[in-house]
């Protein structure tokens, strides 16, 4: 038994681009390009990056909500990427997904009871009273009272809906969850409540979590390890505190310096990026970041840097930032 609960090896997810009269495949979007990382039990691992960097696709590929093109996803000793769909379906009891938008991810025609008992009915063969017991225990954990059981999603606020959504994901007692931007659709004053709840549940239920977010502040709060993604690849990964204190990849540094400061007087030192993220259907040669990097050399244009261990973390850069 390995010390890791999840071991993602060289994961690749490509989407075909169809074109022409015959709808033939004329190319591929390289949404996830060779991503590897490991997750220990009870750990929160964050995938952070800008839109289109492949963080969400990575999360969905790990859970086989999208089928990966290549690579291995070893969960608890077995390769999920190679299992037939029906076996993956049975495994979902142990690994769940929390969606970004609670307004759209709950079926509007199902009440709280139906939403929470459905996963139990799917994965367990429980008597009615036992289901009630479990649903009520879960309601208690998310701060709901039993009289809210027969209400429908529209009767709740956004934050409450996200609580229901989290409860639905956790009611089967999974060991592993992927949370995809679980607070970014919520009002600022509600985000803190939901993050506290997630941390609480993660500790109480001994969950391991892959937390996907574009919000660098949220990532710093919730994760112990982080991977910074750009154009489908991991640029830098390691302990969250270390990377935030001293980013070694020019992209991580630019990303961190772009977060607005809350002090109007103390303007941060900016490491502004030129240009825009390239099209993932036509990624640049060599290092994917080189067209926007101030340190790019011929080597960067020619050769893609491998993710290697440097400065006590994994780094994919030919010219990492020194002290």
């Amino acid at each position, binding site marked *: 038994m390995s010390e890791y609960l999840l071991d993602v090896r060289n994961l690749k997810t490509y989407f075909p681009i169809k074109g022409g009269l015959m709808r033939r495949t004329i190319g591929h979007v390289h949404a996830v390009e060779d991503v590897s990382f490991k997750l220990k039990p009870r750990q929160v691992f964050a995938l952070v990056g800008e839109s289109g960097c492949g963080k969400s696709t990575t999360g969905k590929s790990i859970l086989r909500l999208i089928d990966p093109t290549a690579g291995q996803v070893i969960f608890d000793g077995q390769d999920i990427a190679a299992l037939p769909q029906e076996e993956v379906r049975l495994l979902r009891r142990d690994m769940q997904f929390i969606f970004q938008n609670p307004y759209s991810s709950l079926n509007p025609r199902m009440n709280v009871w139906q939403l929470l008992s459905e996963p139990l009915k799917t994965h367990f063969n429980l008597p009615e009273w036992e289901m009630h017991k479990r649903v009520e225990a879960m309601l208690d954990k998310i701060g709901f009272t039993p009289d809210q059981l027969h209400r429908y999603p529209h009767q709740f606020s956004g934050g409450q809906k996200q609580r229901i959504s989290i409860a639905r994901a956790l009611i089967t007692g999974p060991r592993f969850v992927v949370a995809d931007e679980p607070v970014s659709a919520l009002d600022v*004053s509600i985000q803190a409540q939901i993050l*506290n709840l997630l941390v609480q549940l993660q500790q109480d239920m001994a969950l391991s979590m892959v937390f996907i977010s*574009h919000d660098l502040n949220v990532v710093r*709060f919730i994760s112990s390890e982080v991977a910074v993604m750009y154009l489908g690849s991991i640029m830098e990964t390691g302990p969250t505190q270390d990377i935030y204190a001293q980013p070694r990849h020019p992209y991580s540094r630019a990303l961190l310096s772009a977060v*607005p400061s809350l002090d109007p007087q103390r303007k941060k030192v900016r490491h502004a990026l030129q240009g*825009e993220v390239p099209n993932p259907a036509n990624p640049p040669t060599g290092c994917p970041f080189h067209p926007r990097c101030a340190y790019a050399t011929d080597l960067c244009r020619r050769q893609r840097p491998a993710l290697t261990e440097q400065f006590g973390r994994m780094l994919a850069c030919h010219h990492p930032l020194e002290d």
Partner: protein
Amino acid sequence: MEHVLEITDLKISTLRGKETVPLLDKVSLKVGRQQCLGIVGESGCGKSITASALLQLLPYPLSVTGGSAFFTASSQARMDLLTLPPKLMRGIRGREIAMIFQEPMTSLDPIFTIQQQMFEALHFHYPHMTHADRMDKSLSMLRKVNIPRPEQTLASYPHQLSGGQLQRIMIAIALMNNPRLLIADEPTTALDVTIQMQILELMNELKETNDASVIMITHDLGVIAETSQHVAVFYAGHIVEEAPVNELFHHPQHPYTKGLLQSISSLTGDSRQLYAIPGIVPPGGSWAAHCRFAARCSHASGRCLTDMPALTEAAPGHFCRCFLHSQEVEA
């Protein structure tokens, strides 16, 4: 100071069945020349409808039910935007006051090229401009907002450009007629942080180079800190706190503002527990007659649950709607 816009006691209501429901309650604001006024608040607090009301763009069944909004045009003529006849309003929109929205993807028409859309904006206000002049003007505006390869961009359709580029183009179109006032409604919410930084810096520069004032509407206090000189915090349809930007961030007075700042700063601390304002954001129109934040406030007591506090000056230039900070407490 010279004010480009002075809003006094603006009220907006909607119809729910046959009932009139207030959505915005006696909001008064001033925007100084070359200044950026930040309006910050959560969903349903009334920040976006304030902007729509100024340009008479409120969707049915919303309507202005009181107040005035005096705008000083570039001709120095002073007019109330809320009662302006539609014909005159069309001359104001896009020329004197321009607006940019959250979603650049849906604010541009997908079937026209950028050039056609820029020319159209020019044509409306300057029908006699020659083709060459329009071309010059469009290209120079695109350069001003740092669009690489402006000639190529002009010939592109919206779907061929990225969100960041489209938002720059929206800003270029908005500034093309040198408006006195630019209203930006969550202009960077749909964009990535690195692009957000570029856009905010661009807007900060253009304020001075174009002699424009800005109203920045956002839910993000970070964006406010980056851009605004003066801030109004909206909560449940009215202003709960208003102050110069440094004052607000360093000496917040209202428990709501304090709570927001505290929960964001606890994110960056080492604690495993965030400061969270309890309760839910009250949905539009279902507001208490007493202090509207009382239900979520840890300091709420006695009067907070019976009376509505007034917006009073807690420190010079710093207004707060809370009994804890008003002189009325002692009285």
